[in-house]
């Protein structure tokens, strides 16, 4: 992790343990994600990938340790986080249009009462165009296909204009063309200097598009440049590390030592 030293950290994990009901899903994670980095989080099912994103997003308080977020330069300014959960719990039968769903991405600017002005409308139009949903503005969200819904959610992410973008399996059950389009947006965010973390299962895509990778199996198996992390040996190791959930696990003694 030599190149991480020069750029400031956007996200730093300090002996982080995240989990449910005292059972750890991410166990004693230490390390940092550089500002502006593009990182894939990979690992077997149950390895704690989604849990890690939830933790960064602040939706799950750590069992132990800390997650520190910073913009890198000015102190005290909290970075803006955009989080796209796996299978977002959206009520698709709710009578709301694509336009309205996308424009709530402006929440951090408009908030509870702020109005959506002409410049905002232009931005909403651009975001919809960027995901290829121009002309869908008036459609109720219930009429969208899975891929179109994902495009709409990416348009909302675009409007959120966040410093840190967390994507949990954004391309699962999405066709090749939509995936390619949305991956283009991820590259664009990377070029704009935003910190992007994505949970992925397609190793081929990770090798092609993601410079850095965290291979997780509750504990980090390997972390660094993608080609060094995704070796057959590491992947095999990760597969063996995630043991069954043990209801009678004893209290972890590592911190006491």
């Amino acid at each position, binding site marked *: 992790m030599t190149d991480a030293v020069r750029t400031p950290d956007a996200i730093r994990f300090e002996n982080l343990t995240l989990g449910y009901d005292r059972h750890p899903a991410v166990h004693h994670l230490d390390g940092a994600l550089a500002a502006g980095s593009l990182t894939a989080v990979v690992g077997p099912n149950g390895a704690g990938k989604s849990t890690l994103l939830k933790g960064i997003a602040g939706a799950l308080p750590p069992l132990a340790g800390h997650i520190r977020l910073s913009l890198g330069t000015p102190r005290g300014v909290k970075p803006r986080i955009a989080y796209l959960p796996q299978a977002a719990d959206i009520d698709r039968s709710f*009578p709301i249009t694509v336009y309205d769903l996308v424009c709530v991405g402006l929440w951090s600017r408009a908030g509870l009462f702020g109005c959506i002005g002409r410049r905002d409308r232009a931005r909403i139009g651009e975001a919809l165009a960027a995901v290829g949903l121009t002309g869908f503005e008036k459609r109720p969200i219930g009429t969208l296909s899975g891929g179109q819904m994902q495009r709409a959610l990416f348009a909302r992410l675009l409007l959120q204009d966040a410093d840190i973008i967390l994507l949990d399996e954004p391309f699962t059950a999405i066709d090749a063309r939509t995936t390619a389009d949305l991956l283009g947006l991820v590259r664009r965010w990377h070029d704009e200097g935003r910190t992007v973390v994505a949970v992925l299962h397609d190793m081929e895509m990770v090798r092609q598009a993601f410079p850095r990778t965290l291979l997780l199996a509750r504990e980090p198996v390997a972390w660094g440049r993608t080609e060094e992390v995704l070796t057959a040996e590491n992947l095999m190791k990760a597969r063996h590390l995630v043991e069954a959930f043990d209801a009678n696990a004893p209290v972890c003694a590592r911190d006491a030592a």
Partner: protein
Amino acid sequence: MLYDLLIAPFVEFDFMRRALVGAAALALSGGPVGVFLMLRRMSLTGDAMAHAILPGAAVGFLLYGLSLPAMTIGGLAAGFAVALAAGLVARTTALKEDAALAAFYLISLALGVTLVSLRGSNVDLLHVLFGTVLALDDATLLLVAGIATVTLVALAVLYRPLVLECVDPGFLRSVSRAGAVAHLAFLALVVINLVGGFHALGTLLAVGMMMLPAATARFWSGDITVMIGLSTLVGMLSGAAGLVLSYHTGLPAGPSIILVAGGAYVISLFVGPVDGLLWRLVPARHLEA
């Protein structure tokens, strides 16, 4: 002829005009509240809360007789207590909110019926259960109208987080803490509307003025703004038509209003252009694209 049927009752009798104003005020706030209850899949929550109000109103009634402030304050206290207790249990234990609410409202209802029957005759019980829309005095009218005003203002303020809490609660949580506040404030609005409604329609039917117009509106539009407008309109028309029906047939007024709203719902269920049942029988041919 038509004048005699529809207009004359209101022109001739003061109590009919008061009832009309009261029903209109209830519809004005019940319409939008009902639409949100329906869209949040909380239609039965309204019903449960209506039952929960009973013991509070009964305590007020026991202590002070048929006194408006006593029964209102009692009803509000019981409603808020049950809503808060159910919310706390749902958040801190494994029990889900519907089960927690069911438990508390049943306790509350049993307590309420017991309290009412301790004193008073069955007529008093009927009054609490079914209201007295034909005997609204100035104070009650002001209360109902005040509640409608507060509700509409509060809904305007809460509109954005309330809608977003229904569509994508996860997203709202990630950008703002307003979700929980909006949820609690909305429950409070439900309670005050039910308390306003029970003076006119009684605890059991007050919720009908919310849910039936909202469910009716769902069959006529897929747009939430239109739905809220339609729901209010259906509520107001049901109020007027129910009063006329009751005047000419001698049926009790409160149930008549709800029956008319129920009729509107059943008709819409069949002929409503959005997913109405009849349209399924004659499916139009599919389009080219």
